[in-house]
Each structure stands twice: as C-alpha cells, then as structure tokens.
C-alpha cells in the first residue's frame, strides 16, 4: 500500500466505525424506550 492508499484505508475504516457505533447507540436507546413502554402499559 502506498501512503495515500493507507490514509484512505484508515479514513474509510474510521468512518465506518463511527457509523456502526452510532447505530449501536441508537438501538440501545430504542430498545430501552421500547422496554419501558411495553412494561408500562398493555403493549403501548
């Protein structure tokens, strides 16, 4: 890999990791909210 390619490799990996992290956090929050709603009422 040339230095340019390596920079591109790292940039793409970093961007993907951020997207995956954001998605995971989103689903953690969503499942927490779903759980609270479903425990709270009769299925909401």
């Amino acid at each position, binding site marked *: *890999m*040339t230095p*340019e*390619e390596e920079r*591109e*490799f790292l940039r*793409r*990996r970093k*961007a*993907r990791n951020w*997207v995956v992290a954001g998605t995971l956090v989103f689903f953690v929050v*969503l499942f927490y*909210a*779903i759980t609270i*709603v*479903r425990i709270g*009422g009769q*299925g*909401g």
Partner: protein
Amino acid sequence: MASTPSQTAAMMPTEWRDFFALTKPRVMTLVIFTAICGVLAAPGSIHPVIGFTAILAIAMGAGGSAVLNMWWEADIDAGMKRTMSRPLPGGRMRREDARDFGIFLSAVSIVLMGLAVGWLAAALLLGAIIYYAVIYTMWLKPRTPQNIVIGGGAGAFPPLIGWVAVTGDITAMPLLLFAIIFFWTPPHFWALALFVQSDYAKVGIPMLPVVAGEKATRNQIMGYTLLLAPIAIAPWAIGGTSWIYGSVAVVLSALFVVLAVPVFTRMRAETDAMTPEKTLFKFSIVYLFVLFAALVADRVAAYQGWIA
C-alpha cells in the same frame, strides 16, 4: 494507485455510503411515507415509540430486500448505463458483503417488528421481503413483461403493514390501501418507460414497451388506470372514510383517467416531446401523495371528532 476497481474492493474497507446506497434510499422515501400513512389512518392508538419502531422496521425490511435485489442483479446493472455505477457493478464492494448485509438487515427488521410491535406485522414484513427479493427479483422479473405489476405488489406492502402494526388484524381497509398502490404502479411506471430510453432489452429484462411494443403499453396504461379508479374510491364507498377522502379520491381518479386518455389514444411521432406521457407520470406521483394525505386527514378528523 494503478489498481483496478476489483483490487481496490478486495483490500479497501467499503465506504459506508455505498452500503447505504444499496438500500435504495429514494425508493425508501415513498415506503416510509405510505407506511406512516398506514399507521396514522388505522383505527386505535399506538404509542409513539412503538409506532416509530414499526416504521423503522418497515424501512429496514424495504432496505434489506433492496440490498438483496442489488446483489442478485449486479450483472444486469453492470450492463445498463443508468445502473452501471452502483456500488456492486462499480466494483466498490464485495458481493458477499452485499448479500450478508441484505440478509442481516432483513432479519433484524423482522425480529424488531415481532418483538416490539407484533408478530402478524412481522409475518407480513417477512412475506413482503420474500415477495420482493425472491418472487419478484429472482423469479418473475426476468420472465414476464407484467413484471412491473408484480413489482408493484412489493411497493404496496408498507401501508398494509403499518396499518396492521396498529390494529393487529387484517381488514378490508388495509387491503384496499395495498390494492391502490398495486394498481397505481403499472400506469406510473409504464408512462415513464414510454419516454425514457432504457437499455433493459440489452440485459434481457422483458420490459413491456420493449417486448409487446408501444401500443400494447398504452393500452395497459389505460386499463390499469380504469381499474385503479374504483379501487381508490372504494374506501369511501364501503364506509371506511368520510366525504373528505371520498371527494379527493373522485377528483384525483377522474384527473388520472383524463390524463391517461391522450396517452392511450396517441402514438409517438418522429420528433416527439412526449408531453402527455411526462404529464401523466408527474401527476401519478402527486396522485399517490395527495390521496394518502387525504386519507390521513380524513381519519384524523374522524378520530378527533371534528366530523360526524
């Protein structure tokens, strides 16, 4: 630096935007809109969090099946100008990654719908995904010039699933919403197919204008437009809506027929601007948005007690 696209795809991590592009985001806007309409128009209440989750699951299921469609059709897409720079034919990602991403998205969407909302809605979502990815994409699209009619069935699921997410059962109204999009799709798409030069013939997809000719396509547009009108008015006729939706449906359907007639009666001239076809296509989009918006307005007004 001089590496070919396939070599780049093999060693570079795929851009996340390319994964996103596989889910056909523009198609998804219509999916999300009609699904929201299904949720809002259904009788009964749903907690906003659960309603949001239902829409999200439908969008993820639509995205997952779109990814599987792109995975299956990568070779076809490579042969057409409009689609040759998509992530797979463009060589920006590995095919196995697309396939696995599609299966993963689909599976998560079904489990999410089942756990958070209900298993009938989840079963319908599974049915919609199999219908689009397997029955349409793999089986019927390459085999019949009525493929657009079959494909319209896939686009017709979101409002049905959205409705069932709220009510938990299948009644006449959500089935009518399904039927409206089902019969709306052929005139919508074939009007476009008449004025856009496509190279489907080159890749062996039997699109109606290519296989059966221009006249047959114009006949079919008229036929499906006439079938659509009574179906669009039916929700009002069976007492499922009030005059608000009823009057909008009657006016819109009459306009649709009026705009389809010149498309039906004329033939392409030497240098043709194809104005009636373009007008019909643009109107068909307005038609669907306004019809569904009217349905939501009608039902919200009724549930709020603003109308009798």
